[in-house]
């Protein structure tokens, strides 16, 4: 199908102009809902922005300023950041903070053992330590900075991490929505539709799956105007 055919989609009887869908996807990643604002889908853009940013900010509120940070140092591999990165540019200061910390951290090689990392004592993280990784070394056997964050926030640190991760994962759905329109699962709710069809008049079955109308892709669930021709 030609690229131009994918620009206009239809869902719930509403025609959606996706405009430049790739730009919309990038904008949707940059800030939740921004891609939808670009497409003039203001209501959904607002809904996404409010839901995702509230979840993200709540994560910080209950977990503190360190729930989002990037680290791939042995003993402190912060894989959670891969999910949190989905929220967009608001997570990028974590990368900058990691670069700063790495510059102030020396690697000490030990024969027959994994390398040891130690942060200089005079290092002061920027922005009051917001999204800054813990000072090195980090070890489960010692009272490091991560242990202090856990001690200070208790379960809040764990919950804050989950909140921010879920916000990032939700935004992946939003990016898809900005790029391709509402997601339709073929066959979803088919049994209910069949029941309804039995009670419908002779005007023909209602179309409920994605269709192309006038050369445009539709992803519709309740479009009155789109009906299969009666055979």
């Amino acid at each position, binding site marked *: 199908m030609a690229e131009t055919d994918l620009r206009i989609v239809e869902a719930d009887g*509403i025609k959606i102009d996706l405009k430049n869908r790739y730009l919309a996807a990038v904008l949707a990643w940059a800030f939740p809902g921004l891609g939808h604002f670009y497409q003039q889908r203001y209501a*959904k853009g607002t*809904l996404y922005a409010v839901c995702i940013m509230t979840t993200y900010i709540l994560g910080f509120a209950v977990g503190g300023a360190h729930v989002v940070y990037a680290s791939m140092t042995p003993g402190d591999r912060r894989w959670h950041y891969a999910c949190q990165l989905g929220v967009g540019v608001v997570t990028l200061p974590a990368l900058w903070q990691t670069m700063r910390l790495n510059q102030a951290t020396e690697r000490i090689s030990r024969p027959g053992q994994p390398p040891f990392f130690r942060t200089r004592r005079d290092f002061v993280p920027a922005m009051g330590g917001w999204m800054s990784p813990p000072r090195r070394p980090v070890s489960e056997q010692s009272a490091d900075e991560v242990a202090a964050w856990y001690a200070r926030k208790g379960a809040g640190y764990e919950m804050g991490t989950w*909140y921010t991760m879920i916000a990032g994962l*939700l935004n992946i*759905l939003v990016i898809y929505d900005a790029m391709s329109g*509402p997601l339709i699962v073929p066959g979803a709710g088919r049994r209910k539709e069949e029941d309804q069809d039995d009670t419908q008049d002779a005007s023909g079955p209602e179309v409920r799956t994605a269709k192309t109308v006038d050369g445009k892709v539709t992803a519709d669930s*309740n479009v009155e105007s789109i009906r299969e021709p009666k055979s």
Partner: protein
Amino acid sequence: MMSISPTYLLYFVPLLVAISLVYGATRHEDLTLILRHALHTAYWMTGFMGVIFVILVLIGLLV
């Protein structure tokens, strides 16, 4: 019965609202249908979590 404070369950509420609304919005364009879908998702999630909770409580009582 529970080893944590029941107030911890409040963490569930914002997540439930956000996930339900975002999930519903990725399936529909019409706001009424989004809210209906979100409500259905919220019921389903709460029910699912409730079933898991009951199973865990029963296991805790039996063991």
